[in-house]
């Protein structure tokens, strides 16, 4: 880490890609160095207008990722501000909200841990935090590869538009 620019639009695009890719791939994604991980949008997605940070729409509930309101917000040009995710890597499960240009973690729930003493607890929680951050990094690297590929303009972006419009057929835009 060396003080790179935050590039706000790319965080918002990452959130959309996460949402789309998890739906496209049925919630199971091959993240290369992080292995096979289950990734799905949990119970909340919030949206903002492109030129402001204030929340304009929030979609909640068990089916928020497929809710017509959520897709309509995206199709109407709103920007994803934060997204609640569930990640599973090996036997470890994480629930969290990713938010904003710096990818802040909000309310990140770590897997159960039972280390004894403050020292042990700290080491275990830091291991889990780093594991979670590693998975998020692997997801971002995969997003970056897709976002910079020729397939983005030719296949993936049209597929996201079709999906947001409720028109995605099975197999479209598959990764």
């Amino acid at each position: 880490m060396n003080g790179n620019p935050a590039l706000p639009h790319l965080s918002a695009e990452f959130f959309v890609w996460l949402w789309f890719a998890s739906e496209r791939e049925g919630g199971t994604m091959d993240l290369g160095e992080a292995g096979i991980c289950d990734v799905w949008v949990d119970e909340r997605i919030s949206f903002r207008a492109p030129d402001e940070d204030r929340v304009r729409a929030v979609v909640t509930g068990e089916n928020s990722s497929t809710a017509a309101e959520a897709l309509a917000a995206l199709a109407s040009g709103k920007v994803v501000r934060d997204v609640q995710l569930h990640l599973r890597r090996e036997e470890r499960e994480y629930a969290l909200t990713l938010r904003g240009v710096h990818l802040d973690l909000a309310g990140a729930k770590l897997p159960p841990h039972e280390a004894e003493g403050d020292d042990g607890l700290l080491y275990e929680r830091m291991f889990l935090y780093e594991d979670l951050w590693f998975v998020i990094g692997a997801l971002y690297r995969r997003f970056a590869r897709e976002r910079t590929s020729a397939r983005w303009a030719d296949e993936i972006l049209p597929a996201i538009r079709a999906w947001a419009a409720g028109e995605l057929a099975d197999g479209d835009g598959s990764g």
Partner: protein
Amino acid sequence: MGVLKGAMTVRRYAVLGEVPDDFRVRYADALADHAFRDPPASAAGEERSGWCRIDNLLETDFSDLNRWLFNQYLVAALRTDKKVLPAKLFRAHLDRRLAEWCHQHGRNRAPSGVRQEIREQLEIEMFARTLPRVQVVEWVWNLVDGWVAFHNTSDSANDRFVKLFRETFGLELAPFSPLDFLADDPDLAAALEAKGISDYRRPHREDA
């Protein structure tokens, strides 16, 4: 909720600069120098910030390394106190004192200088009886890998933290950028950085 228990709400930073070889001694002194200090009881309502230990917000003794250094992790908390007077109660007391002054001096209205003097005296008295609002935010610094996790995402708390961190350790913090995930592939980072904003709206069809 924070470093040792509960859900994590975290903004991550890169630490710009090197940790000195004698950091154990140097950072113990630096933490002590910038530890939280209780203000005088009658202090006015300015905000005060400083470091405390995570085991108890009243503990500001950093002389024992085992209390804040755990292998590669430096762990502490940012304590910020601010006294705020209850506005309606302050107004009510002020009105009463001004009325008493007018009654004693046979005047309909107190001059501005007197009003100011009475206001300042009342603030001193009420601040002395008011407990501060206390915010404690824990943070972890991985001294080996050069990142800090600050357990709060509000901009105001983060601004205070970055400023006090710089004053304490002489090192700058840079908020995490997702491009940091691409540090091992600068070509990919450069290509991504050059990308604009995608429009997920369906393009209008000319023939529609």
